[in-house]
């Protein structure tokens, strides 16, 4: 759901640039306290992997395709702040190098996918993990958070389109949330498969808040 130039009016893309700049600055401060040395190469690998995965559009219903956003995946491995930075890195490179997402819309795209999708998705993941303490809790949390992260990002996108006067909210909201509720199932499946695999081979790579607050 990379917004191109032209979809958002100035009353929307300028404020979202400021909000995202603030969100990234805050994330950098928080991440600098939580990042451990061994997580730095993982940031490179996760950025590369999510960039690559975002090229892989899979078909969904009605002649529409979707691809992994990867926000919840990045946050489960790196924590919400480094995860948001990784998604921002991917979005900035896609915008500047590949014209995927407009430069004016970059703030909104970072807000939707790196901040709301990634940090919001991680918040949902934490809530479920705290509620379901069993071992299956982590997988339930992963699937639900990944699915919901796509839906809430699409809702944010719909609100921005409406504020811009591009399309009324009564039309944008059900259309965006509806199609992304379907695309998000793919997000849930792919994220669960990867987190399940990491849990098997390198469970220590899963980010745990307590362990990193030295």
């Amino acid at each position, binding site marked *: *759901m*990379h*917004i*191109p*130039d*032209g*979809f958002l009016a100035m009353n929307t893309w300028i404020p979202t640039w400021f909000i995202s700049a603030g969100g990234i600055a805050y994330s*950098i401060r928080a991440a*600098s306290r939580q*990042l451990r*040395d*061994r*997580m*730095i*190469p993982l*940031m*490179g*690998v*996760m*950025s*590369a*992997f999510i*960039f*690559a995965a975002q*090229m*892989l*559009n*899979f*078909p969904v219903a*009605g*002649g*529409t*395709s979707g*691809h992994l956003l990867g926000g919840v995946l990045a946050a489960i491995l790196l924590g919400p702040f*480094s995860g948001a*930075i*990784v998604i921002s*890195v*991917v979005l900035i*490179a*896609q*915008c*500047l*190098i*590949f*014209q995927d997402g*407009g*430069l*004016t819309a970059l703030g909104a795209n970072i807000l939707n996918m790196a901040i709301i999708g990634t940090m919001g998705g991680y918040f949902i993941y934490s809530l479920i993990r705290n509620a379901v303490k069993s071992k299956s809790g982590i997988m339930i949390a992963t699937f639900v958070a990944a699915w919901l992260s796509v839906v809430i990002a*699409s809702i944010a*996108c719909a609100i921005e*389109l409406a504020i811009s006067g591009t*399309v009324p909210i009564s*039309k*944008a909201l059900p*259309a*965006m949330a509806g199609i992304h509720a379907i*695309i998000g199932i793919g997000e849930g499946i792919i994220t669960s498969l990867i987190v399940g695999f990491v849990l098997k081979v*390198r469970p220590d*790579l899963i980010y745990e808040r307590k362990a990193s607050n030295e």
Partner: protein
Amino acid sequence: MNKKEIIIGLVAALVLAGIISIFASSWPDGLEKVAENLGFIEKGEGDPALASPIPDYTMPGLKNEKFATSIAGILGTIIVFGFGYGIGALIKYRKS
């Protein structure tokens, strides 16, 4: 992550972006589809605010479209790996 795991991760990403990407669906994504259905897709079809060197993941100057996508994907993966790694290192070590 040790060196071997970093290389495995990077190679996996390169395979996805360089080979599997050729088989990706070219149907419109969720937002594009909504824009088509609700009639505002043409708003996004003007000139972009910034001309990118490799628009639409297609390496310019290459006739074979699949090959152009593959090269764009490989280049992008390497650049983004360096960008993510570099930012991580900067955040961690800027204070010390």
